[in-house]
């Protein structure tokens, strides 16, 4: 049985009906990993022994007639910037190559309480800084739709694992698009929740006011299921919202009659690949046919979003990554004879170029004499961008945009950092405004997946999920597995 092709909700049914066992399922996935991960390179660390032990435990629970949670006994993958106690967590960096956390992230605690299974930790751009997973200290992950192309980033490993059948569900993190863009490049579902919905305790911080953990899954139903578990206030995270968590699966309806879908013109401007534009136009027509109302919208400050992000995020990152100094954990240059020398050498040798670039950019924009012109200015523009969305949502319920202006491009394309940054134009504003956003497969261009993004109001994941589900169920994209060169 190709269990690895199934979604979590399908497997849950099979488990409770005792048609399959969790051990069987878990072994099936590990077998798949053995088969394909040599090519895909989605994983950094596997935790087979513990995973199988957990699977065995769940099988016993089922045999004893216990009610189990939807994710119980179902194997998933965790992006390697999420703290897992006792299991190596590297952030795909040499700096943390041998780091073993002493505590579980809040989301991991919640998932453990659901008796789910962790297959291992997935590859990513180093410290989540990147859009291709190429800045990883480890060999880059390959897109299962075309192994010579990038899977996107920074949660490239999790997304690739999903579409290659190497995990049934996965967690990623999203600061400027790092869940949605890889989901788009690999043809699966990725959600960045409203900022504050999911606790950041245990998510290695990149940019504190932008980071959110979210699900990467085969379909919208699974994404809603994972959201149900990981959302909720956390006493260890001062920025987590004390808001009731609805049952997101109840929002999964195919009715979008009267739904006002906003189309922000700035996201369909120059730079958008015309073929990707074609896919989005078709999706809009599909929505109209389903009874949705299309509304023309303008988000006038969109053009300033990328640079605003690339000032705020590095600024916060420069301080968040200061803790990596070789003193308490992580890579240390043992030859240095003074602490300042040791710290400089450890950081220089432990961090890759992109991380160093962003730390320095962040230090620069915060430094005396430049703070007002850059950081303060960026914070003001952030307010304007938020206001754009607030205004837009007075005229519509949800926004529809491409997730990325292009499809997955070749690995090692030798692009300028700035050129890569500019491709985040569709996803970044959502983080700046703290809104929920989803990317779902909308079609193909030259054999590569195209994702479309739905953006919702603050705390309105339900409308986003409904709109996504309706589209998904009227197409078959969620049932297609990546070819992986015939494997």
């Amino acid at each position: 049985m190709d269990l690895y092709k199934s979604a979590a909700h399908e497997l849950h049914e099979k488990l409770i009906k005792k048609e399959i066992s969790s051990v069987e399922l878990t072994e099936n996935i590990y077998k798949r990993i053995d088969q394909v991960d040599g090519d895909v390179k989605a994983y950094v660390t596997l935790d087979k022994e513990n995973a199988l032990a957990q699977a065995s435990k769940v099988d016993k629970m089922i045999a004893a007639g216990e009610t189990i949670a939807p994710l119980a006994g179902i194997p998933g993958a965790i992006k390697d910037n999420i703290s897992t106690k006792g299991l190596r967590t590297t952030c795909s960096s040499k700096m943390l190559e041998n780091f073993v956390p002493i505590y579980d992230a809040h989301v991991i605690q919640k998932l453990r309480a659901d008796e789910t299974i962790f297959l291992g930790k997935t590859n990513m751009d180093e410290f989540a800084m990147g859009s291709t997973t190429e800045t990883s200290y480890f060999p880059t992950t390959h897109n299962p739709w075309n192994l010579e192309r990038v899977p996107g980033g920074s949660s490239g490993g999790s997304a690739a694992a999903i579409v290659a059948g190497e995990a049934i569900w996965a967690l990623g993190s999203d600061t400027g698009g790092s869940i949605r863009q890889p989901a788009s490049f690999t043809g699966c579902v990725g959600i960045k929740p409203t900022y504050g919905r999911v606790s950041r305790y245990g998510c290695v911080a990149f940019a504190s006011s932008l980071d959110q953990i979210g699900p990467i899954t085969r379909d919208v139903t699974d994404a809603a299921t994972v959201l149900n578990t990981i959302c909720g206030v956390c006493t260890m995270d001062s920025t987590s919202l004390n808001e009731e968590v609805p049952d997101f699966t109840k929002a999964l309806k195919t009715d979008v009659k009267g739904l006002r879908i906003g189309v922000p013109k700035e996201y369909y401007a120059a730079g958008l690949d015309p073929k990707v534009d074609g896919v989005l136009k078709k999706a809009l027509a599909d929505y109209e046919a389903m009874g949705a109302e299309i509304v023309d919208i303008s988000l006038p400050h969109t053009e300033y979003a990328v640079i605003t992000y690339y000032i705020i995020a590095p600024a916060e990152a420069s301080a968040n990554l200061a803790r990596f100094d070789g003193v308490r954990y992580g890579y240390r240059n043992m030859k240095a004879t003074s602490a300042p020398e040791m710290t400089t050498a450890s950081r220089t040798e432990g961090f890759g170029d992109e991380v160093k670039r962003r730390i320095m950019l962040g230090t620069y924009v915060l430094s005396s004499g430049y703070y007002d012109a850059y950081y303060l200015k960026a914070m003001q523009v952030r307010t304007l961008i938020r206001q754009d969305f607030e205004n837009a949502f007075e005229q519509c319920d949800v926004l529809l945009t491409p997730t990325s202006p292009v499809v997955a491009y070749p690995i090692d394309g030798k692009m300028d950092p700035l050129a890569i940054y500019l491709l985040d134009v569709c996803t970044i504003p959502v983080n700046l405004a703290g809104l929920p956003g989803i990317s779902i497969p909308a079609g193909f261009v030259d054999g590569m997946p195209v994702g479309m993004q739905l953006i919702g109001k603050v705390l309105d994941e339900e409308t986003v999920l409904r709109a996504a589900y309706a589209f998904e169920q009227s197409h078959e994209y969620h049932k297609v597995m990546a070819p992986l060169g015939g494997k």
Partner: protein
Amino acid sequence: MKNYITVVGLEVHAELKTKSKAFCSCSTAFGSEPNTHVCPVCLGMPGALPVLNKQVVEFAIRTGLAVNCEIQKFNKFDRKNYFYPDLSKNYQISQFDKPICLGGHVDIHVDDNPKRIGITRIHMEEDAGKLVHSGATIKTSDSSAVDYNRAGVPLIEIVSEPDMRSAVEARAYLEKLKAILEYIDVSDCKMQEGSIRCDANISVMTEDAKEFGTRAEIKNLNSFRALERAIDYEVERQIELIEDGGHVVQETRTWDDAQGITLSMRSKEEAHDYRYFPEPDLVPVEIDDAWIERVKAALPELPAARKTRLMDEMGLQEYDAENIVATKAMAQYFDDAAKHTDDVKGLANWLLGDVSAYLNNNNIEIDKFPVTPANLGELVTLIKKGVLSSKLAKKVFVEMVKEDKSPKDLVKALGLEQVSDTDALQKMVDETLAENPQSIVDFKAGKDRAVGFLVGQIMKKSRGKANPAMVNEMLLQKLKE
């Protein structure tokens, strides 16, 4: 040589005596084995986040009210960025532009001259860990070991206006501030343990100058004495520098207590650029009037109020009351001892006299004084009642500090009860008069000093136990016959 004015401002850091740290729930207990009160948050582990301890805000508001500050309704935290091994995140969570308190004052007395010292601001922040150097000093060590038990302990920083004009004023301010912090029970204020720390900003200016001179910041002041000596030294150093045609550099200097000098701490690196920005992991703290009122209502009695109470309710003189309330511990001791005696004036004299002398000579605070308030009170009562002469009382006191025994027991054991029995005394008076006929002649000739001599003889005869007042009266009566 021109006349120079000394200008001093003090920055005081006080560790707040909360049970848990500022941003995590680790214990703040002092003196444990290294790295035993730590967690992912105060260790700066990847992914850890701060959560503010409510009591830190309460204590900060309490402090602000006690020193007459305006409590700021909108508060936020900021990151102060610099690299140092004792700083587990390599940034300190502090408050930069929206601190919890602005504008207050502390009133001091120097030689009975009152003066008001302004306070610029008070803000909340977290402490760093501790470095244990392998060698004797930081400069002579090959390595250091970091203990993060103290990392994250809450601090308040109290910044004064540059209102002090001498080392004596600075000391008086620090003593008063320390007393207030102890009174309102927000800090242990133990300078030796580092729960209160002081940096001094010192500059000089000529009398006709229109602006303050350039200031130097002096660190490593571990006692009141060090503070005074450092100010005196630094002022002299700056004056000499200026008189020689040089300029004072704005820099950080350290006080070297052994050599009695300040030394520059400047390294080749430039001055710190702390790159303050708002702490994104914390949300603002908004303080409403109701909260301030609650804290105000629960504010413990401050030194000024306590002094007034001692004067009004117990009839103490101002000078005595002022000195009794100088520290909370002394004031508390006084109150406890006063339960065991009516003679509050006598008690005050003993505390400010013999007891204070004992504390100074043995370099301890009253919390380490071996005599209980009850026993001291009893001693004062025995003197008042006439059971014990004040002279002999001093002997008893010497025994009491060795072994905290009840004075009543000691008096009995040493056979020191004052003799006030009229018959016994009369006998001694008659005997002494008989033995000293010349004194009678002298007295009759107008030499009043003869009485004193005769009293002395009787005291000798009675081995100090005769009640001198009664003896004096009886002698006079007999002599006038």
